[in-house]
């Protein structure tokens, strides 16, 4: 207690108040538990709950001195006094409150007494009410039962009335064509009727209604068979009939038969279109029709219209049929135990049905597609195919067990194949047209009689235009075919179509096949036994150059173009560019060889006739070069210009200074040479065969019809070789007189003057001409050579 009074005056009040609370608390025993925790040490706490005065005194006595005890004592007295006064104030403060509380309690006591009275009164009232209500319910009991009965009878009567009225209602419904209503009524009544069918009246009703329902059924059937009824009506009918417990299988059949009727009509329409387009059937004239308007109902459709019509009308309807069929017969909620089985049967029926119709449809579509031959442009066709194909894909999801998309793609493939073949044919045609054009333009100048040079001037142009035409044609065909693999085309994305189409069809079937065709055509020209053997030599030359050009770049350009445009992988098993090039090189070689032998033949024939028809024994002294030699030189010059337009000059053997001198007017050398050579064959020489053998030892063996190179000089050398060899063989078959030999001497000298410039190796010409002269010397009865100067003179003049 002291502690709190020692404290500053500010806190004193609060401490006191809390002390007072503490006391109140202890009074009400609230903090009993808490105080106990304070433990034994609080026995000495004067403010503690468990204060023990003896213990405290003892402690004080032990611990404190006398003065301290004195002080303590006075302090305690002071505290006790203040505590007393505090107690007094408390009592005063709370006195009024006690007084009012007592007042309130007294008032309450009065109030409760009045309430008790009222409660008693209420209880009695309630008793009276209960009594009354019991009374009332007792009186009303009978009436209620009666009413209940009456209501039941009423309902029954209503039902009966419905039953009795049923036939009439049904009739009325049927009259009003609200079949659904009728079926509903019947279904409602049927159960009852079945239950009470032993009773004659009900039986009558049942019979009546059965009859009516039968009628209804026939009506429905009729509606079913009526081909004008719409799909919706149909499905309604089927639904009703199913409700009427008609056998599902029969209905399936009926339904399908009906659908077939309708679909067949569309198909026949398609068929009519196909026939119309193939020309099997002609468009009827309006006069032949019953109604002129019909003429406008079946106009010939183009392919896009056809496919649209096919997919919209036919496929649309077949889809509808499938969908409603599935709804009606397959997806129906299970009612029977054997529904699964019937379900399966129904499904099979459907599949069969669809298959037959689709087969027919496919065949028409394919026929129609095949008819699409004339157009050069593919886009319409491809669009048509695409629509066709898309539509089929949609169908696939409808009918799970089928793969129409696959069949459709097959059709697309076949059509594509047809198109490729068609294009190949067109390309071939175009190529042969090109050839005809070339032949015509080759023939034309000669008819008009223009100089040879003017006629052949355009050889390279002709070649160019032919090449460009062929390449352009191929390009346009390729771009047309690209329509088949356009990005927006669904079937183009199918790998089994795309790979096949790009590789087998376009690259091999079209590109390679066309190149092969060119090759074969060219080879046919080489085969002299065939009809084409009579081709003009210029054409052969042109073709050979064409083949070379193809080999040099066009092939790889075209094939790469195909590979690019159709995105082909290079590792596939396809004809390689190199093998194609190789073939073309061979072809070009053969053509050129053939050209050489043909031109050689023409000149040979001239020379042969000129040698064979002349009497060489009895000829006069030569004055001129024979005209045929001039003709030979002219022809060879013409050939030279011709070949020069298409082939490069080629490599010549280096001309010796000797030969150049010989050609440019200095004839002394050649004269000496000739004399020295031909002098050997004078009659006095015994060892002429020895000499000729020695001569041959130093000269090369000549291949006459040998392979030529792709150059002008090589070609010309080939032709000249053939001609001169023929000349020699002919000379060997004749016998010459003196002047005959001299004429030949003049002729060969003339040839020598003009032919050297055309050949790779002029020594070859010299050698062959020497052979001719030496052969003639052998075959001469009186071998006297002409003076070289005279020969020169004659040749210069001629």
């Amino acid at each position, binding site marked *: 207690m002291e502690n709190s009074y020692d404290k500053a005056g500010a806190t004193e009040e609060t401490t006191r108040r809390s002390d007072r609370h503490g006391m109140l608390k202890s009074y009400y025993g609230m903090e009993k538990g808490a105080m106990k925790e304070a433990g034994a040490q609080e026995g000495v706490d004067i403010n503690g709950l468990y204060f023990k005065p003896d213990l405290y005194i003892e402690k004080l006595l032990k611990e404190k001195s006398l003065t301290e005890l004195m002080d303590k004592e006075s302090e305690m007295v002071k505290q006790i006094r203040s505590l007393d006064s505090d107690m007094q104030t408390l009592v005063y403060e709370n006195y009024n409150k006690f007084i009012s509380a007592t007042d309130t309690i007294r008032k309450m006591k009065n109030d409760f007494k009045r309430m008790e009275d009222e409660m008693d009164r209420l209880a009695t009232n309630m008793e009276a009410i209960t009594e009354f209500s019991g009374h009332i319910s007792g009186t009303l009991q009978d009436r209620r039962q009666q009413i209940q009965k009456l209501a039941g009878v009423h309902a029954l009567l209503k039902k009966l009335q419905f039953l009795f009225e049923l036939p009439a209602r049904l009739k009325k419904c049927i009259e009003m064509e609200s079949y659904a209503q009728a079926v509903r009524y019947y279904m409602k009544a049927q159960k009852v009727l079945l239950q009470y069918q032993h009773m004659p009246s009900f039986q009558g009703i049942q019979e009546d209604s059965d009859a009516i329902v039968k009628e209804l059924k026939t009506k429905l059937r009729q509606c079913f068979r009526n081909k004008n009824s719409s799909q919706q009506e149909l499905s309604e009918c089927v639904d009703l009939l199913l409700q009427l417990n008609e056998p599902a299988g029969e209905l399936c059949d009926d339904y399908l038969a009906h659908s077939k009727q309708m679909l067949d009509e569309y198909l026949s329409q398609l068929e009519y279109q196909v026939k119309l387009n193939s020309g099997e059937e002609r468009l009827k004239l309006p006069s032949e029709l019953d109604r002129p308007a019909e003429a406008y109902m079946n106009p010939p459709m183009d392919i896009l219209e056809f496919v649209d019509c096919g997919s919209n009308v036919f496929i649309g309807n077949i889809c509808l049929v499938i969908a409603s069929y599935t709804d009606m017969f397959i997806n129906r909620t299970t009612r029977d135990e054997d529904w699964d089985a019937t379900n399966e049967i129904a499904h099979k029926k459907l599949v069969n049905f669809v298959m037959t119709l689709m087969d027919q449809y496919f065949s028409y579509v394919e026929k129609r597609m095949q008819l699409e031959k004339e157009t050069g442009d593919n886009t319409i066709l491809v669009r048509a195919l695409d629509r066709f194909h898309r539509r089929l894909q949609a169908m696939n999801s409808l009918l799970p067990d089928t793969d129409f998309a696959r069949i459709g793609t097959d059709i697309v493939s076949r059509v594509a194949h047809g198109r490729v073949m068609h294009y190949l044919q067109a390309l071939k045609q175009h190529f042969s047209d090109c050839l005809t054009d070339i032949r015509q333009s080759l023939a034309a100048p000669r008819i008009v009689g223009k100089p040879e040079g003017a006629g052949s001037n355009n050889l390279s142009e002709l070649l160019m235009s032919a090449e460009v035409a062929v390449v352009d044609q191929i390009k346009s065909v390729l771009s047309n075919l690209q329509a088949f693999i356009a990005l927006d085309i669904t079937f183009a994305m199918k790998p089994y179509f795309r790979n096949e189409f790009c590789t087998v069809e376009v690259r091999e079937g079209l590109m390679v096949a066309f190149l092969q065709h060119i090759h074969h055509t060219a080879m046919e020209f080489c085969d*002299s*036994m065939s009809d084409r053997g009579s081709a003009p030599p210029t054409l052969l030359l042109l073709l050979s150059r064409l083949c070379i050009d193809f080999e040099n770049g066009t092939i790889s350009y075209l094939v790469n173009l195909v590979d690019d445009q159709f995105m082909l992988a290079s590792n596939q098993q396809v004809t390689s560019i190199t093998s194609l090039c190789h073939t073309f090189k061979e072809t070009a070689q053969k053509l050129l060889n053939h050209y050489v032998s043909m031109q050689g*033949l023409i000149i*040979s*024939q001239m020379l042969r006739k000129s040698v064979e028809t002349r009497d060489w*024994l*009895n000829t006069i002294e030569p004055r001129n070069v024979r005209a045929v030699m001039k003709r030979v030189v002219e022809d060879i010059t013409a050939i030279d210009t011709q070949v020069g337009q298409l082939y490069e000059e080629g490599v010549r053997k280096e001309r010796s200074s000797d030969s150049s001198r010989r050609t440019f007017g200095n004839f002394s050398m050649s004269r000496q040479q000739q004399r020295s050579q031909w002098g050997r064959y004078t*009659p006095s020489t015994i*060892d002429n*065969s*020895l000499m*000729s*053998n020695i001569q*041959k*030892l130093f000269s*090369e*063996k000549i*291949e*006459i*019809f*040998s392979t030529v190179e792709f150059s002008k000089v090589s070609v010309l050398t080939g032709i000249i070789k053939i001609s001169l*060899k*023929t000349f020699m*063989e002919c000379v*060997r078959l004749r*016998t010459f*007189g003196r002047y005959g030999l001299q004429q030949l001497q003049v002729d060969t000298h003339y040839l020598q003057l003009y032919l050297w410039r055309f050949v790779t190796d002029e020594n070859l010409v010299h050698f062959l001409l020497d052979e001719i002269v030496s052969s003639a010397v*052998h*075959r*001469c*009865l*009186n071998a006297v050579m002409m003076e070289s100067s005279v020969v020169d003179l004659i040749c210069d003049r001629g």
Partner: protein
Amino acid sequence: MLVQLFHNEKSLRHLHNNIMEDDAPVIYGLEFQARALTAQVAETDDIRFLVGTQSLKFDNQIHQIDFDDENNILNKNVFAHKDGEIWHISASPVDKNILATCFNNVSDTKCEMAAALWRIPAEFDVGLDDTSSSSHSLQLLCRLEHDSYSNMFSVLWQPNGEGDKVITMGEGRFLTWDLNASGTQATMTGVASLEAKGQPKFTAGRWNPHSNATQIATANDTSIRLWDLRSMEQVSNIDVAHMQCVRNLDFNPNKQYYLASCGDDCKTKFWDTRKTDEPLLVLSDHSHWVWSVRFNHFHDQLVLTSSSDSRVILTSVASISSEPLGHLVEGEESDDDDQDDSSRDGQKRAPQTNGVLASYEEHEDSVYAAEWSTADPWLFASLSYDGRVVINRVPRAEKYKILL
């Protein structure tokens, strides 16, 4: 280029016995140019050929070449043929000493072809006197001449006949002759003329050994004609057999209707005379005119062609031969004494293929004639214009392919 084999000219008059290797060719050189070559047909034991020379300035000769197969030696006899240069020579199928030539009768203004029959002098026996340098003359039997017909370029003996019938081919006609037993008298029995526009000239003729030798084939320009000798009428023709002149013909000795032709278009063609719109087979291995074509007498799949490209080519045409599958009939070949062993396994032969078997390049000038030996089926001779005769054999491998 080809380096030519040079032969010592001194040895040209002597036999050439090159290398002893079995398949090596044997070469014999004449001093004159030559076109005419034939096997001595009646001789079936010794390998003999006759060659006629062509020279306008000197006396011409006929060389009888005898080839000793075992020793690989050539023997020769030379007979003078003074009447002119020889363009064609053919030997009697019966008497080995009788031969026919076509030769040039030349005057200053005229040159005419004539034909005559000759006998090789009897006292001059082969091989005994090859050192003799002076040549003996042939003994003239008779001239095949007629007042109204001249210019004969070849004489054909009736094949397999008695040696008493010949045909002479003229420019636009051919004549048939009967000979008396000794061959000293010739009587013309028939003439057939070529009728066509222009002045058609025969270039070749060949007597068909089949059907009793009643048919001959002729060639003029590009066409081949067949004639019946009984009626002397043309029975059929192949209009454009070759693109250019047809040079020579030969009948297949074992297949009745098969005919070979060759010509200036460098091709050799094989025909079935019953169906002439297309050749059975065409060979084009030569690079210049083909001057002669010959079937092997025993193995008709072997065909020999010679050409002015200086080559002789041996080709197999097994597919159209009488033995397309080898020997199917056992003992078929047993007549040939050197083929007795061939019939042993004849049935099992694989079919032979067509194609060039060998190309012989020993010549340096045009080869106008090549002939099979009548004695040895594997041996043949070829003659080039420069007077070189080459005797060659069928390559061994091919021979065994046919035999075994």
